[in-house]
């Protein structure tokens, strides 16, 4: 993602705080093991690219071409490094 160069090493932030329409790269997961394992198994693990499409309570995200709904608390467990707007 070349867009990431446009930003000066942005701080990782929880997915729930990523503005809608922006993309990011998953840096770390927190929360219970079973939850972390399942989201990794769904291709949402470290290094995955995620785009937040929208939503305000539960969020809609796109990972690897797949749309996922995440509750606010679930999104708070996923730390992402913003890479800029969706192409």
């Amino acid at each position, binding site marked *: 993602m070349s867009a990431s160069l446009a930003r000066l090493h942005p701080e990782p932030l929880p997915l729930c705080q990523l503005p809608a329409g922006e993309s990011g790269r998953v840096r770390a997961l927190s929360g219970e093991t079973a939850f972390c394992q399942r989201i990794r198994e769904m291709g949402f693990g470290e290094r995955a690219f995620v785009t937040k*499409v929208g939503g305000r309570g539960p969020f809609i995200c796109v990972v690897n*071409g797949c749309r*996922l709904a995440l*509750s606010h608390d679930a999104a708070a467990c996923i730390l992402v490094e913003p890479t800029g707007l969706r192409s």
Partner: protein
Amino acid sequence: MSTTSSPAPAAPRSAPVYALVGNPNCGKSTLFNALTGLKQKVGNYPGVTVERKVGTAYTQHGQPLTLIDLPGAYSLAARSPDEAVTRDVLLGRRADTPTPDRIICIADATNLERNLYLVHQVLDLGRPVVLVLNMMDLAAQAGLTVRADRLSRELGIPVIPCEAAHGKGLIELKLALSRPDLPLPRHAWDIPAPLAPAVAELQASLSAHEGKGPLVARAEALLLLTDPDPVRVAGSTPLSAATTRILESWKTRWTADATDSSGMLVAARYDAIGRLAREAIVPPAAGTAANPADATLALSDRIDAVVTHPLWGWVIFAGIMAAMFLGIFTLAGIPMGWIESLMGWLGEHVSALIPPGDFHDLVIDGALAGVGGVIIFLPQILILFFFIGLLESTGYMARAAFIMDRVMSRVGLNGKSFIPLLSSYACAIPGIMAARTIEEPKDRLATILVAPFMSCSARLPVYLLLIAALVSSDEVPLGTQVGLMLLMYFLGTAGAFAFAWLFKKTLLRGAPPLMIMELPPYRLPRLRDVAWQMWERGAVFVKRAGTVILALSIVLWFLANFPKPPAASEGEPPVDALAHSYAGRAGHAIEPLIAPLGFDWRIGIGLIQSFAAREVFNSSMGVIFAVEESEDETANQSHLRDALRGAARPDGTPLFTPLVCLSLMVFYVFAMQCISTIAVVKRETAGWKWPLFQLAYMTGTAWLASFVLYQVGRALGF
């Protein structure tokens, strides 16, 4: 690891057993229906309410083969009971289901990488696998080129491109299934070094103590490391003590030195999958490289922007619900007329065949009237199932769960609990079964406990009858009917939410669940699949009417007619004979309990009998108020309604006043009156504790609500 060293299993028996596995929403049911057609049996895995579908398919050469449709799963490391069934059948842990000889994996080509995760786990098992790449057309639309031949070369197994929805690729699949010599997968991947000794030790123990073959033992060993809190379901063979001990000691060691075994294994698997995907998938040409599936997403994005909008989402949701219930009332009228005519015709002919007497009455007033009074609602139930099927197959259902998440989280549940509750509008049994996808056991239990509050189709006949009796004019305005009906549905829903909140605050206290749910892309509904599902569920209802309801109707008739009054003289009013019967005595016995709700002993009979099944209320009112089966084709329903309006208390005042009708309806909204639901809850929660608790708290709520309504109504002069 490489499996080429082990010999291929002996040629399968006469009808080899195939298991069909895949992620949710990958088109597995469509493929199963296309392969088996009408030759399928739907049942349950013993001990769990997970639907078990087994069908017979034929190869291109006409050889029969048994096909087991396993529940959709993202991973063999199960998080919910239905995933646990998939895992256990594949690992040969279930005594009630044969270990499949061969496995058909179905993967969504538009989202291949994630779908390959499960495939990769299945390949570990070392059994012959056929991989079906479904939705190749959608992948092509998204600009993706999926090279089935390369994937086949890499994995050493047949890989069949397919469009199950259009029947494309089925012949190729059947040809692959007919091959007597399916090769074993060529499947090699690197297990992270720190975990390898543990895998080896567990594998040895599983071979020695569980009697597993080397490859299955290895697959199971890998799985045990990523099954942090293994979901054990009834019917699954437990691990031996030796293996459990080894697993525990490794886990303790990893906790001490902070080794994330689960994370390492998943990452290693995804590394291997990434290499496969790079080989097999040619992404679209430059320009949209950031997200290959953008093209298909664009449409879903636009629809989602409206459908999940904080305001418009709710407007659309309310509109769909209103259309669904209006449809039930307006569209069902015509087929209901046909059923009425049919039942009238049947009654007439049977009546002519049997000489008058007890047997005549038993058949006409007991069996036919009882079954007829229930089967008449088949059209409404079919329409309800049609709508639910439509919502599921278009992908809207997941969005409904999405917008409901905020409401559900207020009561401590998440959006996933909404689908079981919505299904419970049709029937609590599929609703409770749908709760199996909820991962958190406490949330699952809370959902199961409140699901029967949602007004099910069995309450519909009761509401319809009482609303008809309540609104005094013959020309019942549709608006009033629908309004009252919606009020009942609303009351039930509000009760479900209130109790869910209460349970999550007290008995089932737990952290708010973390929801992650796939939103399938919007698709045009597959009408054939919707009709299929409607047919399947309608058949269950008809079967119930033909068995349980028929038996109950006969029992009810007997109880309401025997023992005969001592001196049965001509012209004696039927009420006295009824009072003397078993049913009458039972009604009298509970009268003191229900009199504060405005009910007399005759309604009491209906209430007692409704504990078997709610819709029995109508047939029992028919028997009690001696509604004659009509000779012409006028509706039984209006006869029954007139009979209820004419019913009077001993002092001559009408029995079914509007207030009594309302109080009765409210009772039906809240009371737990369904033996089948109690049985399912018992099976689901593995014991009598929760179903009995549910019976008590729901019926107690019903009594209290009716009591308050009736007493306040009386005080206000109604």
